[in-house]
Structure formats: C-alpha cells, structure tokens
C-alpha cells in the first residue's frame, strides 16, 4: 500500500453566547474547567506545551500552538490517526461573545484505517458510537 492521497477538511462550529470573552476564556484555558465540558487534561496555556485529553474511550495528543488570552487559542489534536488543529476564536458582541471553533486536518485514508486497526476496532467503534449517541 503506497497510496499517499490525503485530503484536507475542516469542521466549524460557531455559537453566540451571552457571556463575556473573559469568562469563556477561563473555561477554555483552565484545566479543571476544561475537564467539566471537554475531557480530563493537563493543559497549560503556554505555546509549545504538550498535553493529553483523556476519556474512557482513549486519549487525544495535543500541543499548544497559539495563546492570546480572551481572543484565540489553538492546539494540535491527534487521535485515531487523525492529525488536526483546533482553533478557538472569541469575538466580543453587543450581547456577549461569538465563539468559533475550527478543526482542520489532514487524513490519509490508508493511515487512518491501519491506525484504527492498531488501536483495536473495538475501542474505535465504542468511541464512534459514543460520539454518534451524543448528536
């Protein structure tokens, strides 16, 4: 298998929230708060810091790329063969903040499939089902 075709794609989720950027920033950048809405972690808002997000279905390897308090936060996101970058952008509005999350990444089909096999399909499907159950 020497197929090297990769595709770049991204996911964008945006939501207007009735809270000040400073408050949202705390939820995005303080480990004990991140744990409450995302996953257990050892995050630090320091460029270059490597951390993990951990759930019962596995973990995500991350590294901080950019930190601009109350404005933007960016980190790499690697899990199940998916190499991507997650970028948070906070824009103040008259009633609160527009919070934008963009996850962009590259996926090599073959690599994804073999990584999946390596980690064990059971875990992979448990994770998928969990994700689908939440939608």
């Amino acid at each position: 298998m020497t197929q090297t075709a990769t595709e770049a794609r991204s996911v964008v989720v945006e939501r207007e929230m009735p809270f000040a950027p400073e408050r949202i920033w705390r939820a995005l950048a303080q480990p004990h708060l991140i744990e409450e809405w995302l996953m257990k972690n050892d995050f630090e808002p320091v460029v270059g810091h490597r951390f993990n997000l951990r759930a019962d279905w596995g973990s995500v390897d991350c590294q901080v790329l950019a930190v601009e308090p109350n404005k933007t936060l960016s980190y790499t996101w690697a899990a199940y063969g998916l190499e991507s970058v997650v970028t948070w952008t906070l824009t103040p509005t008259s009633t609160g903040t527009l919070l934008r999350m963009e996850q962009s990444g590259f996926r090599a089909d073959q690599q994804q499939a073999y990584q999946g096999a390596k980690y064990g399909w059971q875990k992979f499907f448990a994770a998928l089902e969990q994700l689908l159950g939440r939608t």
Partner: protein
Amino acid sequence: MPKVHDVLFRTLADPTRRALFERLCREGEKTVGALTSRAGISQPAVSKHLGVLKQAGLVRDRHEGRQTHYSAQLGALAPLIDWTSQMAGFWQSRFDHLEDLLRRMDQ
C-alpha cells in the same frame, strides 16, 4: 443515520463477529479453520459470521482448493470514518456542555 451506517453497525455490534473482523485486520488473510481454532465457537458458526461480514462488504473470500481464505476489506469502513461529520456532532455536544458550565460559573 444513512442506511450504510446501520448495516455496518449492526454487523459489527456482535462481539464475536467483531472479534473475527479485528483478527483479520490485525493478522491478514486467514482460512475458516485458522479462525475457528481461536474463536471459541464451531466452524459452522464462524462461517455464518463470515457470511454476514461478507454481505456487509467487510470481508472478501478467496477459494483455493478446498480452503476458503478470508481477508478484511478496510475500505468498507470509509463511511464511518468521515471524521468531519463525527467531529461536528462531537463539538456541538461539547458546546452544549460548555454553555452549561458558563451558566454555572455565573453563580
């Protein structure tokens, strides 16, 4: 959820069947006999599971003499690994949790 997802999930929901598929993913092509020796179930039962996997496009069979060899078809999983739709759902639900948390931080 599209029908193709239903078929794949239904096919792989059975732990014995999934174990057979995982083994083919990990170890490559195997005969029914080789799969039976470690499956803990009878050869007819293994054959039946392989038939279901084959119908879902997850395995392919190859006849050689009296033996049938099975191999995993990872391409059949492509509909499930469209990561953008998986992640979009994931992030929507995380946003909900985040909003709940922000509301609680208000107190």
